[in-house]
């Protein structure tokens, strides 16, 4: 049996209109003559959402005993028995109480899809496993109900329900998301503009990545005709950037690391920091203090600090570049050479020669006196 078509409505937070849009599209399908049912709906006492559900057949929920209370859950076997063409199943990240067919609703949905039934469902971005830590850091709120990212990547369509943070807050203030007594608490906690702006950015990135990965998979499955087209199609896969910053344990390294990290962020890539230590050089005193500071900064930024013992900086850096697959090397500006050092080739040129072809070398300028505003 052919798997059903899976469409997910993704949002940055509660109240952006995921469920509303799912119902709207369900209604449109029903109007077009398809057999549509609501498998599970969580209207959250929102008037507009409830209005959209009117007229659509609802598969009754089942009551399940859980910790001395009865809760209402989706009746997955009933949905399968009913066998509609399309089932609308809200909140795919929901965790089921023990004793049901599956622990998670997205697993229930997998069965429904396997039965050849199309499914529309909804989820908020913070439920995605890979983004859970990031969202917790952004908002201070840890979401316990998570779903594997594969749920999103396996969907046939992902529709981002986008709303500006200001519009969402306006909806909240107007009582369209939570009842009056909960509005202020929501505004003071999760629904801060900066939280919502960050979540919106995460959602937009997630959908962009999903679109790109699906495009790549599709182009692999359907090889293009000419050689030029095949080369062009492989370009996005070849662009796997990795940044390496050469540092020394001294205060100026902090700025170089910050610059390198911002570049890494823009490229969406990982950052390695490398200090090439002279053989036998002890790590003590001021050097130890600065190495500790570099370790701390690397940990804060999610970068990796590598310490290599070698008497040739260029040879050591070139080896690390090859091992780590770095595509950029960032170095700080050297002080003007003195004495015999004037005769030696500058570090960036030596790095260019020693590193594999195609590796760029960037110099971060020293912040000189009088540069400030």
């Amino acid at each position: 049996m052919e798997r059903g078509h899976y469409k997910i409505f993704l949002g940055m937070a509660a109240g952006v209109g995921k469920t509303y849009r799912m119902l709207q599209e369900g209604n449109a399908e029903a109007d077009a003559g398809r057999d549509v049912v609501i498998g599970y709906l969580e209207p959250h006492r929102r008037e507009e959402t409830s209005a959209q559900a009117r007229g659509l057949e609802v598969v009754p929920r089942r009551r399940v005993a859980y910790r001395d209370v009865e809760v209402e859950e989706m009746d997955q076997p009933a949905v399968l028995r009913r066998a509609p063409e399309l089932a609308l199943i809200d909140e795919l990240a929901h965790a089921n109480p023990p004793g049901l067919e599956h622990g998670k609703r997205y697993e229930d949905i997998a069965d429904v899809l396997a039965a050849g039934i199309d499914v529309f469902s909804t989820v908020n971005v913070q439920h995605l496993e890979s983004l859970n830590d990031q969202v917790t850091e952004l908002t201070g709120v840890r979401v316990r109900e998570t779903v594997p990212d594969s749920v999103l990547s396996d969907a046939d369509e992902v529709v981002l329900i986008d709303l500006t943070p200001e519009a969402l807050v306006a909806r909240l203030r107007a009582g369209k998301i939570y009842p009056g007594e909960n509005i202020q608490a929501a505004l003071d906690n999760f629904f801060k503009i900066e939280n919502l702006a960050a979540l919106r950015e995460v959602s937009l990135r997630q959908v962009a990545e999903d679109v790109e990965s699906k495009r790549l998979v599709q182009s692999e499955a359907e090889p293009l005709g000419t050689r030029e087209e095949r080369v062009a199609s492989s370009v996005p896969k070849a662009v796997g950037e990795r940044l390496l910053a050469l540092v020394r344990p001294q205060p100026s390294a902090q700025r170089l690391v910050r610059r390198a990290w911002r570049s890494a962020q823009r490229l969406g890539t990982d950052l390695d920091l490398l200090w090439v230590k002279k053989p036998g050089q002890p790590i003590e005193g001021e050097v130890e203090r600065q190495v500790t500071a570099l370790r701390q900064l690397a940990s804060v930024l999610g970068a990796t600090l590598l310490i290599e013992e070698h008497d040739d900086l260029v040879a050591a850096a070139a080896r690390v570049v090859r091992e780590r697959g770095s595509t950029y090397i960032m170095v700080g500006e050297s002080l003007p050479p003195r004495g015999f050092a004037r005769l030696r080739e500058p570090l960036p040129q030596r790095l260019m020669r020693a590193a594999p072809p195609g590796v760029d070398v960037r110099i971060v300028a020293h912040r000189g006196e009088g540069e400030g505003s």
Partner: protein
Amino acid sequence: MIEFSLVRGAVPAEHFLVALALVLGLAGGYLLARRRWTKGGPAEAEAVHQILLPFTGTEISRRALDAALRLARAEDAVLMPAYLASVPKQLPLDCAIPAEAAKAMPLLEAIEQRATAQGVAVDSRIERGRTYRHALRRLLGREQFDRVVVPARTAGGAGLAGDDLVWLLERAPAEVLILRPGPEDTRFVTANGSGPG
């Protein structure tokens, strides 16, 4: 004959020049070594000349920064601006905090720019903790300071709270300067440069 006498006469002069060069070289080497030893010797290394400027949020009182810079310049000290980041309890304390780092970076850049313009050396930090006070405690445990310059909380909510300042006064092993924002003190240094005022 003449040639011979000239060569014979040059021998003592050559010896003298070589001896002089040797003496001058040794004296120069001794002076250089002494200067280096005095500069980087153990007595100097133990003296810490650091001024801590802890801050939170996305702006810092211009008054506090200027005061810290004035002190650092007068005492030839290194200024250590430190962004304090609170890590939610649900995350490991030592986890990466890119969102907080992204907030800290432009502000640290702006502070460094002002410091460099005034000839003050800077050694920046980003410190994590469960609370701002916890971050401060970790930083004080790791580094040594002569002074701590800290802006009190403004009406806008930037800066450390009153009880954190009391804690700092009681616990910091350094001189603590708390700068109370004056009613006219509305100037801030932000990621985009100076704020209003």
